[in-house]
């Protein structure tokens, strides 16, 4: 099945896991997600001088809320939106699987799940709560 946003993520090779596609500044180690043709904002490094890297997709929830109303065309609610800190240190926003809001500090991992969209079903990136002991 095709990925919805192949420039953002890729299969990790482990079941339905996903890695996130980022750029790294070789000099400082600064990261940027997603990869863009514009470079790394934190350091001003142009993309040609940056190296593509894969982020593990693992991290923790900083905060999560339920969206109750469809606030944009096609949005299906209830929807869990979370601010996450990846284990590499980057902070980003993502969608959490399910309908139960995870507490701050809850570990999550990126997974690829089928999503119906215009043009057919594609694999989209979601974050799944990592059960203790998993």
């Amino acid at each position, binding site marked *: 099945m095709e990925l919805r946003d192949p420039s*953002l993520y890729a299969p990790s090779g482990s079941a339905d896991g996903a890695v996130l596609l980022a750029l790294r500044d070789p000099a400082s180690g600064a990261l940027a997600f*997603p990869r*863009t043709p514009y470079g790394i904002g934190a350091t001003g490094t142009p993309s040609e001088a940056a190296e593509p890297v894969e982020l593990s997709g693992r991290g923790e929830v900083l*905060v999560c*809320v339920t969206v109750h109303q469809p606030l944009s065309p096609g949005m299906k609610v209830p*929807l869990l939106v*979370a601010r996450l800190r990846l284990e590499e240190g980057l902070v980003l926003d993502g969608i959490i699987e399910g309908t139960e809001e995870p507490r701050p500090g809850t570990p999550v991992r990126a997974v690829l799940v089928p999503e119906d969209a215009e043009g057919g079903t594609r694999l989209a990136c979601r974050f799944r709560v990592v059960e203790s002991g998993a």
Partner: protein
Amino acid sequence: MTDLASMRPVRVAGIGMHPYQFPTETPYVTLGLTALRAALADAGLQWPDVTFAAIGTGAIGMAAGRVMLRHIGSTGLEVVQVENASASGSSAFRMACLMVASGQHEVALALGVDKFGSAQRAAHKDGIPRLTPAAEIPAVKFALMARAWRDRFGLTREDMARVAVKNHGNAARNPYAQFRKPRTLEQVLNSNPVAGDLTSLQCTPRGEGAAAVIVASEEAIRRHGLDRNRAIRVLSSVSSSEHAVADEGWSLVEMVQRSGLSALAAAGVGMEDIDIIELHDAFTIEEIVYAEALGLCPLGEGAAQLREGKWDIGGGGCAVNPSGGLLGMGHPIGPTGAGQIAEIVRQLRGEAEGRQHPGARTALAHMIGLGSVAVGHVLQRD
């Protein structure tokens, strides 16, 4: 960097509004000219006296100023259009102030005008896909902020809802406001859930309107025989954008703090001198977070101050958003920042009938815009 205090004094000579309202078929020209004519009448100036106009708008389109202003007279004045997201009107006001302060012009106009519906966001044109576009929707972004503050500081749903109760109450007394009904805590809490703990009455409405502010030099005030006692001095004007900070992505709050404190420092006043703040409360959480960031109270104490009525008109302290703010007065984008200035001028003159904050002498107007950008002004009556 040169600040306003070291340049020629600038005073607000006239203010005018077209009430904010839900979207209608009224052309923007009618909205804008209504506000402009009111500002000219308020100042006691004629249109040809104005030699510079900054038009703040987010959605009207190219050449909004000339298309509108030719109907009041093509006088050859300098016209520019200012788009700075929600801070468009604030930036137009800043530009008008700088034009007078620098000696480029004697009388300058800042006019914010907008219609809802046709604004386009550059963020949708940067060619970068998002992991979740939902998080960039303002209601979601600020619902996340509200939840983070709940987790950090114990802020409750009721604490946030009290911002809406206060500001809808203020708006009910403001003839230029979009919402004119006082709301109870129960009504706010029981309105439609939107995202996280935010309900519909805790979110700014969509709308349209216009606000005009005319600024003048001391020389122009003398030459035109204007009432100097009603001409409110602009002490400072600052503008900035976000710094990257390593704080869970809340760099917006750091920006508000930095720009607000910079506006106060440039004016030579402290927060203890401020009697009125008009700030960006598109969502209830913002008023609490930004008021704390600006130093109105220690971090984490905003909710208690609200509960005690300290931010009310006549509450004995600094009145926050006496206009009704973006929540109650409305947020038509282009006019919003100029409308804050109009409200502050009315308050500092003692002319805010029905919602006058007693003894108001010094005020801070603080606006943020998508991006994020921040614009701050301090005004004071003599």
